[in-house]
C-alpha cells in the first residue's frame, strides 16, 4: 500500500490545529493530542521525522512555521509520504502565489480543504499536478497584492481532461507571443579541509523552464553532456567536436520527458506543461569548477586574543561577477570586542550566531578580497574547554556561470502550426552548503 494515509494535520508551532482532514476511520480524532504530548512537547521533535505512538506512525515535516503531519496505521511507504507532503505544499504555493505559512493557511483554508479533497481520496494520492487542478478548483487563492501573476481564466467543464494521458498539458492553449525561458540553476556543495584539500564537492543542478507556447509543441533540448554528444557523433558517424563535455552522474526528468527516447537516442524531448516547471535534475561530482577559494588563518594568541585572516579569491572569468556574497566566519561565544579591516564590502560581528558576517554585494571574477580581524575574548576562569571551530560558510550567486560547465547547445520547438518562438537561456550558480573548515 503506497501511503493509505489515515489523516493529515497542519499544526502551527504551538500545536494548534490549523487544518485537518481525516481520510480513514482507523485512527481516532484525538491522534493530534498524542502527537502534541508525545512529540511536540518533548525533545523528540527534532530527533526523528518518523515516530510511532501506540499503533500509529506519525510522518511529519516542518515547513516554515507549520508542521504537516501524516498519520498512518499500516506499514506505509515513507518516501511516498514525504514526497506527497512536498508536492502538496508546492501545489498550495502555486495557488497562493508564493509563501506557505500559518497565515497563508488561515487565509485560504476553504481552498486548502477543497484541494485536500481532490489530491487524496481515502488515503490514496490522486492528481497533484497544479496545471490540471487549476482547471477545476476554480476558487482563486487570495493572492497577496504584491505578486503579479497573470490570472488564467478557467476552462469551463474541464473535467474531461482531468485524468487524460497527457496529464500535464491541456489542449487549446494559445499565446500571442510564443516564448520559452530556460534557466540552468546549479548549487555547489563543498567541504574543504583547513589545509585546503577538497574533502567533498558536488553540484546539483536543475533545468527550470517557463513555457508560454500555443498548441501542443514538441521540444528538444541538447546539452554538452558526454553521453548525448557521443551518441550524436555515433549516429552522424563523425568524430565528436572537440570541446568540453560534461559527465552527468545521474539525471532525473519531469514526467513529460519521453524517457524511452532519452534511453535510445539520448536526446531530451518532451511536450512541456504550460507555465513553470522543473524539466530535469542532475548531479555531478567530477570536474567541478569551484567559483571561490577561501584561505583562512586563525591564530589563538593566548587565552583572550585571536587573530583571524580570511582571503577569498574568485576563480571564474574576469568578465563575470558574483552577487550577494556572504562569508560567515565563526568566532567563540565569549567574544568581547572585534576589530577588523576589509578590502571590499562590509563586515560586522553578529553575536546571535557567533559569527563575523562579511558581505560583498558585487565580487568581480579573478580578484581577491581579504578580511583581517582581531578578536578579544572575555577571559573565563577555570573553563579550559577549547573552542570547537565550526566551518566558515559562504553564500553567493554567480550569474552566467555554471560550476559544472554545462551549456545548452540547442533548444528546438516544433509545433504543427509552425509558429516562431523566442527562446531565453540563463545560467546561474549558487552556493549550496559551501563549507571551509578552519
Amino acid at each position, binding site marked *: *500500500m*503506497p501511503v493509505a494515509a489515515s489523516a493529515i494535520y497542519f499544526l502551527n508551532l504551538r500545536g494548534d*490545529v*490549523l487544518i485537518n482532514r481525516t481520510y480513514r*476511520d482507523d485512527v*481516532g480524532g*484525538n*491522534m493530534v*493530542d498524542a502527537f502534541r*504530548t*508525545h512529540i511536540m512537547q518533548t525533545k523528540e521533535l527534532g*530527533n*526523528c521525522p*518518523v515516530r*510511532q*505512538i*501506540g*499503533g500509529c506512525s506519525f510522518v511529519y*515535516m516542518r515547513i516554515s512555521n507549520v508542521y504537516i503531519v501524516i498519520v498512518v*496505521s*499500516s*506499514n506505509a*511507504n*515513507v*518516501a511516498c509520504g*514525504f*514526497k*506527497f507532503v512536498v508536492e502538496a505544499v508546492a501545489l498550495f504555493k502555486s495557488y497562493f502565489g508564493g509563501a506557505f505559512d500559518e497565515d497563508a493557511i*488561515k487565509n485560504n*483554508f476553504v481552498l486548502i*480543504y*477543497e484541494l485536500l479533497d481532490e489530491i487524496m*481520496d481515502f488515503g*490514496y*494520492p*490522486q*492528481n*497533484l*499536478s497544479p496545471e490540471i487542478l487549476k482547471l*477545476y478548483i476554480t*476558487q482563486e487563492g487570495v493572492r497577496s497584492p504584491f505578486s503579479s501573476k497573470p490570472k488564467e481564466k478557467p476552462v469551463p*467543464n474541464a*473535467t474531461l481532461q*482531468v*485524468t487524460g494521458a497527457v*496529464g500535464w498539458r491541456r489542449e487549446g492553449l494559445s499565446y500571442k507571443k510564443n516564448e520559452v525561458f530556460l534557466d540552468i540553476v546549479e548549487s555547489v556543495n563543498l567541504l574543504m579541509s583547513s589545509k585546503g584539500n577538497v574533502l*567533498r564537492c558536488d553540484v*546539483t543542478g536543475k533545468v527550470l523552464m517557463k513555457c508560454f507556447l500555443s498548441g501542443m509543441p514538441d521540444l528538444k533540448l541538447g546539452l554538452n553532456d558526454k553521453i548525448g554528444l557521443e551518441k550524436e557523433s555515433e549516429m552522424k558517424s563523425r568524430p565528436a567536436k572537440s570541446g568540453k563535455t560534461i559527465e552527468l*552522474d*545521474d*539525471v*532525473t*526528468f519531469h*514526467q513529460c520527458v519521453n*524517457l524511452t527516447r*532519452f534511453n535510445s537516442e539520448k536526446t531530451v524531448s518532451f511536450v512541456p506543461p504550460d507555465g513553470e516547471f522543473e524539466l*530535469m535534475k542532475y*548531479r555531478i561530482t567530477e570536474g567541478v569548477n569551484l567559483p571561490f577559494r577561501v584561505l583562512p588563518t586563525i591564530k589563538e594568541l593566548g587565552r583572550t586574543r585571536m587573530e583571524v585572516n580570511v582571503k577569498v579569491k574568485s576563480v571564474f572569468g574576469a568578465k563575470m561577477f558574483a552577487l550577494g556574497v556572504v562569508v560567515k566566519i565563526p568566532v567563540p561565544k565569549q567574544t568581547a570586542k572585534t576589530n577588523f579591516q576589509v578590502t571590499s564590502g562590509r563586515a560586522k560581528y553578529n553575536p546571535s550566531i557567533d559569527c563575523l558576517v562579511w558581505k560583498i554585494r558585487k565580487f568581480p571574477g579573478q580578484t581577491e578580497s581579504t578580511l583581517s580581524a582581531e578578536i578579544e575574548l572575555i577571559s573565563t576562569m577555570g573553563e579550559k574547554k577549547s573552542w570547537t571551530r565550526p566551518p566558515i560558510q559562504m553564500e553567493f550567486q554567480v550569474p552566467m556561470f555554471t560550476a559544472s560547465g554545462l551549456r545548452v547547445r540547442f533548444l528546438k520547438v516544433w509545433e504543427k502550426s509552425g509558429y516562431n518562438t523566442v527562446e531565453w537561456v540563463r545560467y546561474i550558480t549558487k552556493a549550496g*552548503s559551501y563549507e571551509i*573548515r578552519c
Partner: protein
Amino acid sequence: MAPPAASARYPSPSQPSGKSEVTDLKSQLRQLAGSRAPGVDDSKRDLFKKVISYMTIGIDVSSVFGEMVMCSATSDIVLKKMCYLYVGNYAKGNPDLSLLTINFLQRDCKDEDPMIRGLALRSLCSLRVPNLVEYLLGPLGSGLKDNNSYVRTIAVTGVLKLYHISASTCIDAEFPATLKSLMLHDSDAQVVANCLAALQEIWSLEASHSEEACREKESLLSKPLIYYFLNRIKEFNEWAQCLILELAVKYVPSDSNDIFDIMNLLEDRLQHANGAVVLATVKVFLQLTLSMTDVHQQVYERIKSPLLTLVSSGSPEQSYAILSHLHLLVVRAPFIFASDYKHFYCQYNEPSYVKKLKLEMLTAIANESNTYEIVTELCEYAANVDIEIARESIRAVGKIALQQYDVNAIVDRLLQFLEMEKDYVTAETLVLVKDLLRKHPQWSHDCISVVGGISSKNIQEPKAKAALIWMLGEYAQDMSDAPYILENLIENWEEEHSAEVRLHLLTAAMKCFFKRAPETQKALGIALAAGIADFHQDVHDRALFYYRVLQHDVHVAERVVSPPQQAVSAFADTQSSEIKDRIFDEFNSLSVIYQKPSYMFTDKEHRGPFEFSDEIGNIPITPETSSDIVPAQQYEANDKDLLLSTDEKDDNKGLSSNNGSAYTAPYENSNISSQMQELAISGPATSATTTQSSFDFDDLLGLGLTAAPAPTPSPPLLKLNPRASLDPRAFQQKWRQLPISLTQEFSVNPQGIAALTVPQSLIKHMQSHSIHCIASGGQAPNFKFFFFAQKEAEPSDYLTECIINSSSAKAQIKVKADEQSTSQAFATVFETALSKFGMP
C-alpha cells in the same frame, strides 16, 4: 476570512461568546435559506466560511446542521463544496440528521455537471453512517457507469469506502466484479489505478475467510495482468506508478527472460523525478533478482547513482527516509558505496537525525581502501558542537576499529581523543578502548600507558568509569599505580551510585589482588566488606561469592575470577539475519525506518482497526481464563502467544551465536528454577491449589498462582456495585493489609493513549464501568491511578493500582482483593473496561 481570535480557540461551557456566535450564525443562515435576492450567494459564502472556520478550530457547530442543509440548494459550486465538507464532518455524530442530507446529495449525484456529480458522490460515500448504506448502492452503481472519468474515479474509491462501512453490502452488490472489469477495460488511467488500489485492499481483507477472494487476490499477480500494467505504466501518474510497482514486487517471474523483460520495461523509471517511484523501482529490481546472484550485484551498481542523488536532493526528511534504505542495502552489500563514502560526510547544518544515519553509513562502508579517510573525517566530528553527534562519531571510530584487521592507525586516533580533555569524549573513548582490548589484547601496551595517565576523578559517567576500572583490574601488572587508584575508588564506595561501577570495582580488586597481592590486600578487604553490606542485591551477592570462594581456596578463586585472557573474536550481532531478511522483504516501508519487521509494530490488517497495538513480550493470558471469555479475545491471546514464542526464539538465537554463552546457559537455568521454588514457597498461602508440580513460565512471573484450579467451573461474570464508596483512609489501610493477589500487564489501544492526555477522562470512563478512582497522579509517559470497586450485593472490595505508560502503551495493574479467588475475574472486567477507553 481569518478564524476568530484566540479567545474562542478553546471552547468550554463557561464561554458564552462562542455559543452565542453559533446561535447568531444559525439565525443568519435561516434568513438566507429561503431568500432568492441577488448577491445572496456571496453572503452565504461568508457565513459558510465562518462555520467551517469554527469547525476547524474545534468549536462544535453541529447545531446548525439543519440550517446548513436548508441553504444547500444552490448552484454555486464553492458553496456546495463547503456544505459537503460540513456534512461530512458532522454526519457521523448525527446519524438522524444526516438522513436529511441524503436527499440533496442523491439529487446532486444526478446533476448534469460532472463536477457536482463527482463531489456529491464522494460526500455521500464519506458520510460513514452504517444505516444509510442502502442509499449508497444506487448512486454508486450509476457512478461506476458514468461517462465522465472524474465521476468514475470517485465512484471506484467510493466502493472501497462502502466496503469499510459494510463489507457484506459491498460484496452482495457484486461491486468487486464491476471494479475488475473497469480495471481491465477503462480508458482512463486514474480509474484503473483506483480500481487496483481498491481491489487489492478488498481482496486481501476478504482472503482470510473466502477462498474465492483468495483466488482473486492471486489473479492480480498473474502474468498477463502484471504486463498489462507494466506496459502502460507511463500513462499513470507518479502515485499510481508506485502502486503498480508495489504490485510488481509480489509477482513471481516464471523464468529469467521474464525477469529481464520486466527490468527492461522499468529501467527508465529509475530516472523519474519522483523519489518514491525510484525507490519503488529499486525494490522491484532487488526482489526480482534475488535468485540470480550475479545480476543482483549488477543491480546494486545500477541503482547506486539514482539513490545517491535522492540523498542529496530534497528536504532533510526525505534524505532521512532514503538514508535508512541505503543503510539496509549497505549492510547486505557493503561494497556498493565503498568508493562513494564522501557522499556521507556530514554537513554542518544538517539535522542530527540525518547526521546519525550518515555516521552509520560511514561505519558500515569502511574497508581497507577508505578507512583512513573515513576515520580522519569522523575525528573532525568528535569536536562537533553537538555533543550527541560527537559521541556517535567516536563510537563510529570504535566500531570501525572493531571490524578492521589493521587497527594501528585507529588506535592512535582513539588515544588522541583522550588528549582532547573533554569529559564526554574521554568517557566514550574509554568504553571503546576497553572493547578494543577485549578483541585485540596485543594493543594493551600502547593503550595502557595512555589510559594510566587519566585521572579517575575526571570521569563521571558510570559506563566510562566501569571501563576504566575493568582495565585497571585486567592490566594491573602493567600499570604501576593500579592498586592505589583502585584503593582510592574503593574508599569512596559510599559515594558511588552506580551498581555497575561497584560490581566492576569488586572484580577489579580481585583481579588486582591475584597479580599484586601485598599492595591490594587492604583495598580488597574494604571492598568485600562494603560489598557485603551493600543494599544492592547483585553487589551483595557478588561480594559474598568472592568472599566464599577466597575462603574456600585462593587458587580456585584465581581460576574463576581471573582466568588467562581470551580475546573475543566477534561481538554478538544485535539482530538476527532472519529479521534482517524480513526487513529487506519490506523494503520501502516503515519497517526500514524502524529497523524492525512490520509484525513488530503493526498488527495484521485483518484484525480490524481497533486492535493493533499489542507488542511483543506481552504476558499471555493463561489459557484457563481466556477460554471462558469471548472467542475473539482468545484468538488475540493465541496470537500474542505466537509473537512471544518467535521473540523467544530470536533471543535464543542471539544467545547461541554469542561466544561463550554455552557455559552461562545452564547456570541461568538453574538460577531460574531456584527462583521458581522460592516463588512457590512465598506465594500466597491461601492458594492451596498450586501444589501441581509443573510450574510453567507464568508462575515465574507470579501469574496464575491464585487462578481458579482447572476442575472448578469457570468463575461467574463479576457484577460490580455502581455506587460503591470507600473513604481514602480506609483504602490506605486496606491497601497496607491485603497481599497482592494478582499482577497483570496488558497493552492499551492507541485511542486510549491519545485520550489519556486528559487523565480525568479515564477516571470518568472507569466510573461508568463501576470502577472508582480514589487517587491519581503522574505525568506523561507514566500515569498512576488507584481504583477500587465493590462486588454487587456483598461487601467485598477490590483495590487496584494501575500504572499506564503511554509511550509503550502498556498498563500494569496490581490487584488486592478481599476475596482473592475472584481477583482474576475482576482483572478481566478491568481490562475490558480499559480496552474500551478512548473508543467513540
